[in-house]
Each structure stands twice: as C-alpha cells, then as structure tokens.
C-alpha cells in the first residue's frame, strides 16, 4: 500500500456513495477494480470446469510454470505477461494433449512445477538480486496495474469467457461423459487442448491479482464453493463467477483501508467461505442412505405377481 493513503485517513462509514467515491479516488484503485473484476469473472467461469475435470493441481502447476516465464521475460527485457502467457500456454497445450493420461501424474506435474519455481528463482537472481520482483509475481501486484494492463487484461479475460461459452455444451459433455461424447462426435481431444490453453490464459491473468502461489483462491475456491450449492451446471458456472468477483472486490476494498496485502485478504475470504460452505451447503449433504429407497421398491415390484 502506498504510504500516502495511510496519511489521507480514507473515509469509511454508512455513507455508501462517499465510500464508493473514496474507493475510486485513485487511478490505481480504479485499475485494480477493473482488472480484478474481469480476471475474477474469467477465473470463476473456467474454475468451474477445472474442479469438475479434476484439474486443480494442473492449474496450480500452470501458474508456477508461468513464474519461470514471467521472470525469464523480465530478464530478457520482454513484458512479463508475454513470458507468462508463452510458458503457461505451451505447458497447457501439452497437458491438454495428454488429456485423461494427465490424471494420476501428480509426481510428474509436481516435479515440473518445482523445477519451474527453481528456474524462476535463478532468473530473479540473475536480474538484479532483488527479491521484490519475485514477490510481485508470487503474491500478486494488483495495485501496480496501469491503464494499458487493464486493456490487455480485459481483452484476454473477455476472450477466455467467450471461448468457454462457445464450447460450453460439448465441454460439459466431454467433462462428464468422455466416452459417450466421443462416440457422439464431440472432438474430445481438441476440446481438452483448447480448454487447457484457455485455462493457461486465465491463470496468467489471475497471477496479476493473487500471484502464482495464491491462484487456488480465484480458480478453485469459488468453483468448489459453487459446487456445494448447486447441482445444475449453468448455475454452478454463474455462482462460481459471482463468488470470484465478490472475493476480489471484498479483498481489494479491505486492503484499501487496512494496509495488509490483498492476497492475504482474498485468500482469507476464500478459505473461510469454503469452510462455511462445507457446513451450510445443502446439496451434497443428503443422507447417504436415501439413494437406496427405489431399490427396495424395485424389489417389491419384482415379487409382486
């Protein structure tokens, strides 16, 4: 947080209009809200499919691979986002091509992830020896976003959401029922690659907000919570996106008033929301035995003349 803010004693109270004015008083806050919103929307929508496809760990690994890309880009004088995108999208395409074979490859993914972090560490050291660069990528730098970044983020974010909308039904089919989808002519492998590349873009965007290490808070947590509240895919996607946006707004707002890192607030909100969701979510807390009732009925039907 910039020092000047603390001195300014920002307004907070029941006058919500004044609170709004206060929050949007500085360009850096406007940019943070703008970029944060589109990033969260994209992360929430794609996150729903990440959780459904069991790709949480792969998404986590993608962000780490992006760390090597971002620091490498800085070292060679290229924009960090370019390095991030090149690395995550390449890795995403490979993961997508592996498709189902990616499952159960935790060790391989984990090793690639660790090596990427190691590479990033080397690149950071080679650059200036300063740890600030790495900290920014690792934990996010949403308050450092300029208006040009906002435009790039908006275009990338909108693109990812539009692509998911365009492939929504076949993607859902391939996710839930790969074999039948394939038989029905759905290009399962192509979708798998496309999805991982789109995920790579969403992850690269989200790294700006929460950083490489806290990516779970935006990609996985909102979707995991949404899946506890609805068994309808369309509602799940919308709820997941809404959650991600709320977490981001809440995190940014709190961080404006309390001079601790946004990443801390967003992850904290995400974590406790998940804990609360686990206790109150109605959908998946059905009693175990209820599924057996119709069986008993079938048996009766069988014995009746």
């Amino acid at each position, binding site marked *: 947080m910039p020092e000047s803010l603390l001195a300014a004693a920002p307004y907070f109270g029941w006058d919500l209009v004044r609170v709004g004015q206060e929050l949007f008083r500085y360009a850096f806050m406007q940019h943070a809200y703008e970029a944060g919103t589109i990033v969260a929307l994209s992360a929430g929508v794609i996150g729903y499919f990440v959780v459904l496809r069991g790709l949480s760990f792969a998404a986590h690994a993608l962000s780490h691979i992006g760390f090597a890309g971002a620091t490498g880009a800085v070292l060679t004088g290229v924009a960090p986002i370019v390095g991030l995108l090149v690395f995550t999208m390449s890795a995403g395409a490979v993961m997508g091509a592996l498709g189902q074979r990616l499952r159960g490859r935790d060790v391989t993914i984990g090793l690639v992830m660790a090596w990427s972090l190691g590479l990033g560490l080397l690149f950071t050291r080679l650059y200036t020896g300063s740890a600030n660069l790495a900290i920014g990528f690792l934990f996010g730098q949403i308050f450092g976003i300029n208006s040009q970044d906002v435009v790039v983020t908006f275009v990338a974010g909108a693109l990812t959401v539009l692509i998911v909308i365009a492939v*929504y039904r076949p993607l859902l089919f391939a996710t839930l029922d790969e074999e039948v989808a394939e038989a029905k002519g759905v290009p399962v492998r192509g979708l798998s690659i496309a999805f991982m590349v789109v995920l790579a873009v969403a992850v690269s965007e989200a790294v700006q907000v929460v950083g490489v290490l806290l990516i779970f808070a935006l990609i996985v947590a909102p979707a995991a919570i949404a899946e506890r509240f609805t068994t309808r895919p369309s509602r799940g996607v919308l709820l997941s996106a809404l959650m991600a946006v709320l977490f981001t707004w809440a995190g940014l707002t709190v961080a404006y008033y309390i001079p601790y890192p946004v990443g801390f607030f967003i992850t904290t909100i995400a974590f406790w929301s998940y804990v609360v969701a686990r206790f109150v979510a109605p959908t998946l807390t059905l009693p175990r035995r209820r599924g057996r009732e119709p*069986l008993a009925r*079938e048996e009766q039907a*069988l014995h009746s003349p």
Partner: protein
Amino acid sequence: MGRSSSPAIVADGLAAAYADRLIWRDASFTVNTGEFVAVLGPNGSGKSTLLRLVLGLLPPAAGTLQVLGKRPHRGNADVGYVPQRRNIDRDLPIRGRDFVHLGIDGDHWGVAFGNTADNHLRVDQAIQSVQAQAYADRPIGRLSGGEQQRLLLAQALAGKPQMLLLDEPLASLDLRNQIVIAELVAELARANGLTVLLIAHDINPLLPVVDRVLYVAHGGVAIGKPAEVITTEQLSRLYDAPIEVLHDSHGHMFVVGLEAESAHHDA
C-alpha cells in the same frame, strides 16, 4: 427379430485390431432390426472392441461392416451408447437429469438459447421411460448402481436412437437388479423398435429376454440362439480348450473350464 426390413448390422469377414495386435477375425454375422443380442465372452476377448467398431471409433482391420445400412461413423445419432462405467464420483455435483440432457444437445456448440421447452420435455419423457422420476434431480454420484444405470440408459434414449449399444450395464448390480434392468431394456427395445447389443458376463439374467447370443472368444466370433451357442461342443471349439456347459433345474447355464482362459486374458 424376424422383421422383413433391412438388417441393423452386417459384418462380413470382419477383423478388429489395436495397432498391430489382432483381437479377433473372420467375423461374419447379421443382426436383424429389433433384435436383442447379448455379447458374451471372457475379459479382453474384444467385446467392447466390437462396440467401438459399430460406433465408428475404430476402423475394421479387415472385412466390411454395415450399421443401419451405412458404414459406421462417429457421431451417428441413430446409435445410442452406454459405455462400461467406472464408479461415478460420489461428490460429482451434477443431477442425473443433466446427464440425460447431454444425450439431446451435448454435442451442440455454445449454450442453449431460446426455446428449450422441447428439450426439457424430451428429457422428462426419457426419465419417465426408465421410471427414474423419483431420483432424477439428485446428484448422480449419490445414486445406487441400478439408478445410475437407468439414467444413463435414459441419456442414450433421449437421443432417439434406432440402436442401443450397452457395455456391461449389469456389472456391479445385484442379481435382482440385473434382471430388472435386463427386462427394462427389453421392454424399451420392444416399445421403440430398437436393436440392442448388450455386453454381459453372465447370460442367465438375460435368458428370458435375448433373441441371440454373440460369443467373442479366442480370436473369433460365434452367433446363434443361447441354446445353440452356449453348448459344450460350440464353446470348446471356439476356445480350442475343454469347456463344459452345465444346466440347473431352472434352465440356467453355467460355463465351466474358463478360469484358466480368463486369467490368461486378464494378464
């Protein structure tokens, strides 16, 4: 069976192979429209491979195959398919109804827009036809094996197919449910004029409903009525090993002598 219309499946000198590995060959048979055929044979003999050929997911290694008068091709809306199912994740947050819906428009691009009432009606009808109304709105992972099997059957039916390919739909069901599901499939096939190929391990729950049996074993295929194919002589010849078929007082058939053969194929 016995209808005058053109046959549903015609195989002539058909062979199946993965890469260089030949699974079976010299399969020549005809499945008539509306016929209920049980596909039997030991593990790894190539029963699922036969379905993959009919679905057009695997090209024939040799010979010809006609499905509903055409060469098999992926995305054939006339063929409904229920693959062999690993356990559905208990926590999968998706209703059975949504699975059924995918059978109608899962292969369409984009999101559903405009008048979706028609599709919802078709989903309802498919769910009713398998009598799954009571639990279609529950998360599918929380249902029993029999309930899941009904909903997956409804998914295949929702696409209004002419043919059903069912890969081990009776596996992991208790005997009573095996009979219930087998009868349900037969009833639906009769009502809708469907041709059915159903892979099973045990012929007995299917005996009251099947027309013929297609036996896949030892690199070859044999087809005929259960009493013709599942005999000591036929199976011994097919397996090229001493096999014995026993009958109990209810007319059930038991194939003995396959233990070594199955173990060999599993390996």
